[in-house]
């Protein structure tokens, strides 16, 4: 074991240049253009030549086994250079065009798919779920697998009107991109926290706990001489923020926890400004292992969008063009009181004009 003196800290990450393929190094900052070769395959050209990118899906929750298989392919086809994308796909960076097809064959054999470029559904930004997080109202990796099995054809093709970004988060903390995705799947609790009055006084700071509630539903109280908190159940909308700061206020409720579906968010500035995702379906049951209600609902929205949007129109742009009333009509999704905003800026969502489709 190393001695104390040799312990190093605060070195930061390794300098990135050592990980760049020579062609990339030479073209760095000087790229001229890119081309799309086929789904999952791009080429980028600069004064120093062309690099070919082959992108494959990853479940993101991957083992050293999976990664070593990937690395073997990188050694075989891309001079040992590869990268991950901001949506957790894997990109092989090839100097030789002729390596593209053999690499794809090997990737498919490994059990993964090549695609995710251009007007496709790319990988799903997601979270920990029942695999690792205490806060989860649903699983994340399982939902992603179930949904992407249904949508795989949209990953391996570029037949959608535009890019379509799907996100999954297992609780309202939304670790990821739920609030700004074309389609988002959000796990949620639907009943107020149950308070463990024995544990609470030791485990939690009362002022922090009280302050954590977005809706002022938590008040200090005293039970058998011990200071604890109580929750005004009429004011609680199950966000779980109290649980984050106070472990003695768990929300998990197998009977009522479930999943909601959101649509129409976007991040890029292309054409329209970034948009938040909006509520489509307030509640679907947790139905593991394959969440059929959820996969169904998502697939229907994707297909409706695919059939009706214009070229380069993202989901939110499409809905804005046709109007939300038509989206609900066409999708057959019921419009309920839950769709009406009632948080901070709710008033800014009311329709304050006569512009409506009849």
């Amino acid at each position: 074991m190393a001695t104390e003196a040799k312990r190093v800290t605060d070195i930061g990450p390794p300098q990135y240049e050592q990980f760049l393929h020579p062609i990339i190094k030479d073209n760095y900052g000087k790229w001229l253009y890119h081309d799309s070769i086929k789904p999952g395959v791009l080429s980028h050209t600069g004064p120093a030549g062309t690099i070919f990118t082959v992108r494959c899906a990853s479940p993101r929750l991957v083992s050293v086994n999976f990664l070593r298989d990937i690395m073997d392919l990188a050694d075989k086809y891309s001079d040992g250079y590869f990268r991950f994308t901001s949506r957790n796909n894997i990109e092989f960076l090839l100097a030789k065009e002729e390596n593209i097809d053999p690499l794809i064959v090997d990737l498919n054999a490994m059990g993964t798919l090549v695609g995710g470029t251009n007007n496709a559904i790319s990988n799903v930004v997601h979270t920990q779920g029942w695999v690792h997080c205490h806060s989860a109202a649903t699983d994340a990796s399982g939902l992603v697998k179930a949904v992407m099995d249904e949508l795989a054809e949209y990953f391996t093709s570029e037949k959608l009107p535009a890019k379509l970004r799907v996100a999954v988060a297992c609780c309202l903390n939304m670790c990821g991109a739920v609030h700004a995705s074309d389609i988002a799947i959000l796990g949620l609790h639907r009943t107020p926290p149950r308070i463990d009055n024995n544990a609470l006084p030791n485990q939690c700071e009362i002022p922090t706990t009280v302050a954590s509630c977005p809706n002022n539903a938590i008040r200090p109280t005293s039970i058998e001489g011990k200071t604890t908190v109580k929750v005004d159940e009429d004011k609680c909308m199950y966000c779980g923020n109290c649980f984050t700061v106070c472990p003695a206020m768990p929300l998990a409720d197998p009977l009522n926890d479930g999943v909601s579906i959101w649509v129409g968010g976007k991040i890029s500035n292309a054409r329209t400004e970034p948009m938040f995702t909006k509520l489509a379906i307030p509640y679907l049951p947790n139905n593991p292992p394959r969440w059929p209600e959820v996969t169904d609902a998502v697939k229907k929205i994707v297909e409706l969008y695919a059939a009706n949007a214009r070229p380069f129109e993202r989901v939110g742009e499409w809905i804005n063009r046709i109007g939300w009333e038509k989206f609900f009509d066409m999708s057959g999704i019921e419009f309920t009181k839950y769709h009406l905003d009632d948080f901070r800026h709710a008033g800014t969502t009311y329709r304050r004009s006569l512009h409506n489709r009849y």
Partner: protein
Amino acid sequence: MADDLKTPLLDELEKGPWPSFITDIKSMAGKNDYCKDLLGQLEKSYEDKRGYWKHGGLVGVMGYGGGVIGRYSALPDEFPGVSHFHTVRVNQPSGWFYTTDALREIMDIWEEHGSGLTNMHGSTGDMVLLGTRTEELEPIFRALTAKGWDLGGSGSDLRTPSCCVGPARCEMACYDTLAMTYDLTKSYQDELHRPMFNYKYKIKMSGCPNDCTAAIARSDMGIIGIWRDDIKVDQAAFAEYVDSGMDIQGAVVDLCPTGCITVEGKEINIDDSDCVKCMHCLNRLPKALSPGDDKGFAVCLGAKAPIVEGALFGSVIIPFMKIEDGDFEPMHDLIERIWEFWDEHGTSRERIGEFIERISLATFLEGIGEDPSPKMVKAPRDNPYIFYEEYYEEEGASASEE
């Protein structure tokens, strides 16, 4: 051993075309108890429709306050392999570029000291090593640093900055996202490793307004490339697009948000004074159009998920800035002014976006010493509730400031 493990529900997730994380975890289940018991506990979660993890405790490596997420099973007797199941966040290299040599070294360390499961990558950008015991943390740390790797952030600190592929493989990049990410990460090691902020602070860098790291939605500080002069046009390349039969009118002209593109014959004309740099025409015509020469970035502050005050997108605080001659000083200066002011006036667990909304944009700008600009707003105020600070004194007619 995986043999005696029955996971009928999880097994369903081995079917179908998408790569299966279950198959992958199973491939490890023979190798260590972490994975075996993870599968067991997960199967139980699938049966019972609930998670079985306890709230994390304070675990970490010596001298660091962040970088490790403590996690304990709520059923340690049933699943002792995951009684501890902590996450180690490892700071990824800029742009998530690796060589097989480098990543193999990490895999070896991780197989020795942990579950062998990872997230490549976490949503913030870290390489996430998923599942190990408390006593392994320090050894892992030492092994990693020996190979040149360090931990990422967690808690109320600077989180691991991340960036798009940018100049390394993209013709749209308006500044060097990789260099900026590296510089900021190296410059703020203390802020990254030792939580002392009001709350988390995330930085994401995108080379252009396509925003391929979702900086505008997922980072307290989004540094997003932009240019100020005219879009560069290669008319010959444009003519080739026309000749190719592409629907230029439908796919480009009609979709420009400000209608500032006109096409005559095989020539494209852009009224750049009206262009809002949305990227759409460049995206469609990458061979003909590219960002101008006067490139740099805008800084957007305040994006976050909905807890507590509702989700926010970042809002423009610095409409334009650039790094010249590799000198990151002006950027450091900006960041430090922001942190200092937030530190002094923000409250605990108040993200910077919520802080700005609470104290108002005008006060925030004054606090960090920046001038207001119409580029920071969609529109000026529509309510008449103005706090005037200049007023006339009884005596004379000259305006004075409070």
